[in-house]
């Protein structure tokens, strides 16, 4: 069958799955007084529609920042404004529409997510799968990326617009991969101005582009490229922040809303180092907030340093993809005030690795979905969680033949393979950690924990037992995979002369 018809069929199937998930409940449904993310988005439409621009980020009588105050950059605000103009004004009436929930309103909100997805994220995935992924698996990779459960459940279930920011970032990757550096940086800056969490991806973009400039020689074309990119970035920032540029107080307030450093090392249960460490040592109480901040900053920087330096020295697409994974995962594990939904930031570049490293990628993607289980249970999304996870696991393992690609050679550990074998042999473990049996064991454990979270009541002394088990279990997976992906990135030799020449770019 022709490409276009198969692609259309995959897209139609992906859209059907997405809309079917959106028939379920959303965050904070029927839970006054605060409700949830759904109400937050509706409230932002109300605020941007009714109030003038200079009041959006300030605490005024009309705009109570304690009730879902705007804490995303201006592009989110403009998007909310656009949506507010398209609908029934009753739904965004100032103050009176708080907590509004109705059948028609839910349909509208869900439709805005679908439209954004269709216009931004899905075309980017199409372009990536067909122009930048290698081998004969293009359509299969496309379908698998479309079926990633984490993004579907958060955007169409919990309710958010991650497909816009992640989609724009993906556009950035695709366009850079095709060689148009200026446009790629433009796309990424737009993504950054939609959600500030995209800063997790910013260092790889920076190092990749800087590395390219170095390669072209800083005394000539490289410098010219650097200037072009710098100008593009600055101009795009200026355009996005245009209404706020008139008053420095405005800019400061927005920045203050975007980076709430007063809120502490972590909130709730999240599968990163600090929350997991807190189980053994109560670091939140032992260390002061400033010490926590410096500690977190230092560990994050140390974690991202090797990957960034390697990318700077070898700015190829393959290195870029790996650096995106490593950088965002390191930020997730060690940074300040991380939310469990931020796992979507490393998940996107891991999706791009599905073709090259199927088994580790599938493992990570499944673990990332699993790590958000407590959130899904709170939102009443158990059935979609189970169905989409099983469907994703089945399709990706079957279509990408994941188990045939877990030999040591295919895992691309390079020279570190020998080192690892020596180390683990001393401790008597199997030399290959990433294999079928371990994978099955892990998935079974995830299924078991999911079942227990639903069916069993936690003991009275430990009311948070199951969310904690889920996040610690996920954390161990993330840590192990961070180590693995770092090894893969560092192990690649600097010169592109390789036996199969596949990754020369």
């Amino acid at each position, binding site marked *: *069958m*022709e490409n276009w*018809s198969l692609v*259309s*069929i995959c897209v*139609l*199937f992906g*859209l*059907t*799955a997405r*809309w*079917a*998930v959106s*028939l*379920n409940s959303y965050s904070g449904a029927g839970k006054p007084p605060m409700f949830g993310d759904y109400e937050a988005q509706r409230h932002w439409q109300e605020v941007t529609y009714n109030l003038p621009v200079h009041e959006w980020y300030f605490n005024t009588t009309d705009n109570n920042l304690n009730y879902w105050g705007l804490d995303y950059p201006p592009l989110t605000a403009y998007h909310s404004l656009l949506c507010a103009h398209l609908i029934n004004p009753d739904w965004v009436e100032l103050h009176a529409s708080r907590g509004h929930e109705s*059948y*028609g309103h839910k*349909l509208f909100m869900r439709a805005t997510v*679908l439209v954004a997805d269709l216009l931004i994220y899905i075309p980017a995935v199409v372009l990536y799968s067909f122009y930048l992924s290698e081998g*004969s698996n*293009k*359509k299969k990779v496309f379908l698998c990326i479309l079926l990633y459960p984490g993004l579907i459940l958060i955007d169409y279930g919990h309710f958010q617009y991650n497909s816009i920011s992640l989609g724009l970032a993906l556009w950035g990757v695709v366009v850079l991969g095709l060689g148009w550096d200026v446009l790629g940086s433009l796309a990424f800056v737009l993504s950054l101005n939609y959600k500030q969490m995209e800063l997790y991806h910013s260092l790889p973009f920076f190092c990749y582009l800087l590395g390219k400039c170095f390669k072209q020689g800083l005394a000539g074309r490289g410098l010219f490229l650097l200037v072009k990119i710098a100008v593009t970035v600055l101009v795009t920032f200026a355009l996005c922040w245009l209404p706020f540029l008139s008053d420095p107080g405005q800019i400061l307030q927005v920045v203050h809303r975007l980076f709430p450093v007063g809120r502490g090392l972590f909130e709730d249960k999240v599968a990163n180092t600090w929350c997991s460490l807190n189980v053994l040592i109560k670091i939140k109480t032992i260390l002061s907030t400033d010490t926590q901040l410096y500690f977190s900053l230092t560990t994050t920087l140390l974690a991202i340093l090797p990957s960034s330096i390697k990318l700077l020295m070898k700015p190829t697409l393959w290195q870029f993809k790996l650096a995106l994974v490593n950088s965002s995962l390191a930020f997730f594990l060690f940074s300040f005030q991380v939310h469990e939904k931020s796992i979507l930031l490393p998940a996107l570049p891991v999706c791009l690795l599905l073709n090259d490293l199927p088994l580790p990628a599938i493992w990570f993607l499944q673990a990332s979905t699993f790590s958000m289980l407590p959130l899904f249970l709170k939102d009443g999304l158990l*059935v*979609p969680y189970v*169905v*989409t996870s*099983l*469907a994703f696991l*089945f*399709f990706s393992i*079957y279509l990408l033949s994941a188990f045939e690609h877990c030999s040591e050679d295919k895992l691309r550990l390079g020279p570190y393979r020998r080192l690892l074998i020596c180390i683990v042999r001393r401790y008597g473990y199997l030399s290959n950690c990433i294999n079928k049996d371990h994978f099955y064991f892990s998935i079974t454990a995830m299924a078991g924990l999911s079942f227990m979270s639903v069916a069993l009541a936690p003991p009275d002394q430990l009311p948070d037992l199951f969310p904690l088990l889920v996040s610690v279990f996920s954390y161990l997976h993330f840590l192990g995979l961070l180590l693995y992906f770092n090894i893969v990135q560092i192990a690649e030799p600097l010169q592109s002369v390789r036996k199969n020449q596949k990754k020369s770019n």
Partner: protein
Amino acid sequence: SVMATPRADDWSWFPALALGVSFLKCILINAYHSTDFEVHRNWLAITHSLPVSKWYHENTSEWTLDYPPLFAWFEYSLSHVAQHFDKEMLVVQNLIYTSPATILFQRLSVIVTDIVFIYAVKECCRSVREEKGSKDLLGHPFFILAALLLWNFGLLIVDHIHFQYNGFLFGILLLSVARHLQGRHLEGALLFTVLLNLKHIYLYIAPAYGIFLLRSYCFTKDNTDGSVRWSSFSPVRLVALGSIVISVGALSFGPFIAMPAVLSIWCRPRGARGFLRCLVVCALGSFMFGWHVHEKAILMAILPFSILAVESREDAGIFLMLTTTGHYSLFPLLFTAAELPIKVLLMLLFTLYSFTSLKKLFRGSLLNPLETTYLLGLVAVEILCEVVYPLSPWQHTLPFVPLLVTSVYCSLGVSYSFIRLYVSLLRQHGTDKHKQL
């Protein structure tokens, strides 16, 4: 680029197709369901809570038991599993009881009993004539048939959104057809009798079964020109058949218009495929002219016809016409706004697949320009009925106009397909006569 060409015995794609559509069905668990949901919950309650003698007398709910006894026993056995989900659903007085556990159980029961349908599709695929020459997997007739049957749009929205047990029933029908295609006639007859006792609507195609079995099974040999050799009549076979399908001949009240078609399989049986063609004509004829026909009955013609569609060019053309029109006629079943994207997306998915795969299989266009224009007109009808008309001033005074337009427009396509199918059947009968002369 193509999937790797599998070996002839590599059927690993089949579970993938089946599992994929099952996942899709699972994700539709929380979609809209119709009053048929309450109908079946009521029947679960009746068969579980009351003694057998009261099953057909109970009328607390308006949805009294109106399927044959075997279906009642089916609901009875389901009720034993249901009690582990939510005991309250089995209380007859709990009218319109829709707890999450009830919804989960009922939806899962449809999805799980579809295993009969999946098995039947596999058997049908094995009976499909294969063309020589290696093709990539996606171009093989049996792959296309499996996809057209497993992912059939009508079955998905009627069973897994609207709510019914057609997958299970059509599975038995298709299995019966497959057995006849494989020459295992007694099993086919047994399965059809079982089916009749599960849902009496299948009486409409009983004439096809009755005459075919009488002609092809009870008369063991034909003359050289294919006509009946009366001396080869086998009483043993007749008794065997009769003891299984005693109700077939006596109870059929199929439309008289089916008679010439039925006659043709008496005079020139043309094997099991002729029987299948006649079955489809009977089903479609009863849809056209029968008493109190539901729009879902179009599936009785569409599903068996899929087998013929992957084997002959002309049939594929008629199939595309019938299927697209027939499936579109099911749209009014899902009238809620939330389900509109689902029915549109699934319809596009199935229609796009059926057109591109059959076009590729038979290498070339299967429809003439007039037919294509008619089908494109369906898009205009949809936009008119779902978007334009609700915003017009007549929506309140004449609310049934969209339904009227849909029915009338689709009836053109369905009638046209019926006529073409009938003509093709009689033409085959005619060419045989011609060969004789």
